[in-house]
């Protein structure tokens, strides 16, 4: 080695998180003593390295001790790598000459044997020291950021995000799978705890989206493919054929009036109502253009009918329309694809689908909705009988290890809302069967108290069964809810006319495929993973991809709106900077060493390697290279090197990690 580096080693106590298991004093003394030959000139341990005092300590040493490399042994680089790189930068050292090694997540938090954990910390630090010697000063790559944003999902979270971005003056593409935006919120009648009419607060926002000059609304569309990286994504969107010429359609409604074919609407009406084969999902739909459901349309089945075409005053029907693929450029992407309702059929003992008067929460939302199939009349499936006793079952498919362990967060308040609506409109007696009542937000607990005052019955116990098998005359013709009241210890059989299952929220059925398409991951439950559960809840580990609303986990409307706005704010901050700094983790080919074998050419999944026929050498395009390093590992001539993860860095780290054990091995031999 030509010039010896001057390395500083900093060991963080992280309060007791590290120091409680790893003997930090010993590790620090050992590093100063045993890693001297590698160039360590100073080793310190400190209570909180990430604090400003800790950072100043490093900066002072860089100046006073003339450090040329820094190793920090603390938490995961995914948490504080940027912090310590910036600290080094502040001290006048190139940020990439700093290495953060994890002795918390990988050591003190996962081991109980203090001596072994201390030895492991020494090995990890020695690996970091050996590696940091080969670090090179680097500059982040700056790439321009495209001002447009793609928002996937037109529920309340996506709507909020799109409006925030568009109002700030930037273009937005809002892609929605269904024919209209609005999402689940559009299906609800009232929203808790204020009991605002859902449509009254949602539809103005939908109209704003539909008419906003900065928003390109693509409904009945889905994202097919995503290429590129933060700042420069190319997205292919499939715009499914509506069979309507949008520029000619006025949304007058004659076509769906004249359409002779009615089908059960399993999406918007949750199976409670019917729609035509040409339809808009609900009267306030945005956009106003209908869509022809080709599976059920008589013309597509039998080749005749065309009633809609005959009556359309503007000739806007086009039976030959085909799917269109649009390619758009965007700088950032927000995923707000929402949730699916837990399928209540899965809990067979609750009888949903078998017992007529067992409803899901979404069915009840439609039933109680003034614009729903019964005009808001709460009646049984026969369409006329008003229930006299109603039972609401909480936690259906949530807080249950057989289905989903998590709490779906909204069901308690939603059940309370249902109880209120039933009492208000029918005067029926209402029983709530709950495990715990969870009302932790503004005005929620007060709403619960209001329901208690209104005389709703609350029975604490998980419902065992809903059946129609009467044992007593009073149970004849009723649904019997079998439950143990855990507050009194009594087994109860409660006869009711109607049972409502508060089914929980689940990740979208295709959440995994969506995550894969956008290069992010799902948790074990299937919700998309945020970068940090507390401090970075809308960003993901992939730069430029954000998540908002229920796609991240169950939440209510206010929380979804907050996340939509937060994701938009994060993106606005990025767009305002006009360019984005990328990690300079890139491969490059030494033309003198390249033999032109082209092995690397086909390995690259991003087509970042070009082959120059004239010179018979390959070259990496740094704008396309994502830095995976596969080509570096595969090059038989060793002509490709990768910054930040070079062969020298990794081979030295291996040596460093094993440094502790070399004398032992020799002694054995």
């Amino acid at each position, binding site marked *: 080695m030509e010039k010896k580096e001057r390395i500083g080693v900093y060991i963080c106590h992280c309060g007791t998180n590290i120091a409680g298991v790893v003997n930090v004093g010993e590790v620090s003394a050992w590093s100063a003593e045993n890693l001297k030959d590698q160039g360590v000139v100073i080793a310190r341990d400190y209570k909180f390295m990430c604090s400003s005092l800790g950072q100043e300590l490093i900066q002072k040493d860089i100046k006073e001790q003339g450090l040329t490399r820094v190793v920090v042994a603390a938490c*995961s*680089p*995914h948490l504080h790598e940027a912090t310590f790189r910036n600290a080094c930068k502040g001290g006048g050292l190139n940020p990439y000459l700093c290495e953060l090694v*994890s002795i*918390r*997540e*990988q*050591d003190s*938090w*996962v*081991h*109980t*044997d203090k001596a*072994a*954990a201390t*030895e*492991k910390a020494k*090995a*990890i630090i020695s*690996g970091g020291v050996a590696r940091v010697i080969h670090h090179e000063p680097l500059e982040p790559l700056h790439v321009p950021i495209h001002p447009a944003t793609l928002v996937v999902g037109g529920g309340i979270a996506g709507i909020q995000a799109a409006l925030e971005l568009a109002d700030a003056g930037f273009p937005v593409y809002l892609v929605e799978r269904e024919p209209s935006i609005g999402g689940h919120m559009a299906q609800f009648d009232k929203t808790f705890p204020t009991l605002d009419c859902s449509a009254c607060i949602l539809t103005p926002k939908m109209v704003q989206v539909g008419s906003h000059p900065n928003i390109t609304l693509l409904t009945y569309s889905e994202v097919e493919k995503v290429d590129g990286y933060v700042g420069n994504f190319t997205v292919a969107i499939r715009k499914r054929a509506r069979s309507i010429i949008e520029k000619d359609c006025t949304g007058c409604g004659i076509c769906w009036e004249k359409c002779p074919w009615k089908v059960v609407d399993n999406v918007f009406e949750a199976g409670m109502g019917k729609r035509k084969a040409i339809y808009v999902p609900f009267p306030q739909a945005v956009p106003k253009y209908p869509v022809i459901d080709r599976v059920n349309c008589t013309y597509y089945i039998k080749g005749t009918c065309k009633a809609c075409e005959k009556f359309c005053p503007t000739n806007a029907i086009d039976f030959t329309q085909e799917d269109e693929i649009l390619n758009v450029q965007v700088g950032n992407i927000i995923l707000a694809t929402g949730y699916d309702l837990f399928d209540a059929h899965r809990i067979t003992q609750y009888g949903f689908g078998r017992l007529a008067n067992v409803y899901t929460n979404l069915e009840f939302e439609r039933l109680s909705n003034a614009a729903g199939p019964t005009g808001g009349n709460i009646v049984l499936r026969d369409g006329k009988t008003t229930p006299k006793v109603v039972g609401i079952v909480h936690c259906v498919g949530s807080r249950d290890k057989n289905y989903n362990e998590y709490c779906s967060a909204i069901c308690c308040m939603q059940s309370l809302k249902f109880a209120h609506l039933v009492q208000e409109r029918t005067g029926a007696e209402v029983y709530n069967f709950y495990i715990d009542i969870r009302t932790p937000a503004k005005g929620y607990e007060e709403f619960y108290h209001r329901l208690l005052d209104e005389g709703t019955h609350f029975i604490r116990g998980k419902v065992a069964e809903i059946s129609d098998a009467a044992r007593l005359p009073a149970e004849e013709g009723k649904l019997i809810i079998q439950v143990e009241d855990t507050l009194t210890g009594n087994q109860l059989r409660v006869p009711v006319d109607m049972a409502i299952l508060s089914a929980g929220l689940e990740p979208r059925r295709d959440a995994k495929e969506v995550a*894969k398409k956008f*290069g992010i*991951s*799902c*948790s*074990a439950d299937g919700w998309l*993973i945020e970068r940090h559960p507390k401090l970075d809840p809308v960003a993901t*580990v*992939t730069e430029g991809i954000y998540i908002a609303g229920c796609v991240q986990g169950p939440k209510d409307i206010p929380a979804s709106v907050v996340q939509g706005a937060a994701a938009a704010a994060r993106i606005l901050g990025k767009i305002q900077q006009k360019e984005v700094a990328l990690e300079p*983790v890139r491969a490059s080919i030494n033309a003198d060493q390249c033999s032109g074998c082209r092995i690397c050419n086909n*390995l690259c*999944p*991003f087509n970042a390697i070009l082959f120059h026929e004239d010179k018979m050498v390959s070259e990496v395009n740094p704008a396309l290279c*994502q*830095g*995976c*390093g*596969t080509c*570096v*590992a*595969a090059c038989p001539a060793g002509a490709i090197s*990768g910054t930040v*993860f070079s*062969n020298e860095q*990794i*081979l030295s*780290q*291996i*040596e460093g*990690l*094993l440094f502790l*054990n*070399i004398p*032992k*091995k020799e*002694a*054995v*031999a």
Partner: protein
Amino acid sequence: MSDTPETKPFEPIIIGFTCNWCSYRAADMAGTARMKYAPNVRLIRLMCSGRLDPTFVFKAFAGGADAVLVSGCHPGDCHYINQNYKAMRRFQLMKRVLAQLGIEPDRLKLLWASAAEGAIFAREINSFVEQVRALGPLNWNKTSFTIPADADKEEVPA
């Protein structure tokens, strides 16, 4: 070095390679959730399991490691589209080469772990440590291990 060889169990030293996106985050997750596992594995972060140059594995064995763990995203989940398949191919190749060098191929393990699978990561490390403990220290030059007859029949996925 014969203090108390009988009472002290053999503690293998294992070098583990993780990818930046899935398996390193699985390790982070195991940490955040305070799941306990054996302290024998020392991890190296790569951007992708596709970065794994077979040299790294041989270097680790030559440098004194008793075993090597290679981990990455599940097939199909690779952050770089499909580079973990390349790691999978190299893994099969390395197992053959190890056998030919006289090293038990069981000293090399491939583990897929997503960012959510901290528990699997911890569990698999424990089982690997036990597996290597059973194999004993890697005394390469003194090993009595013979190449299994079917070593080169092992299937290499395309």
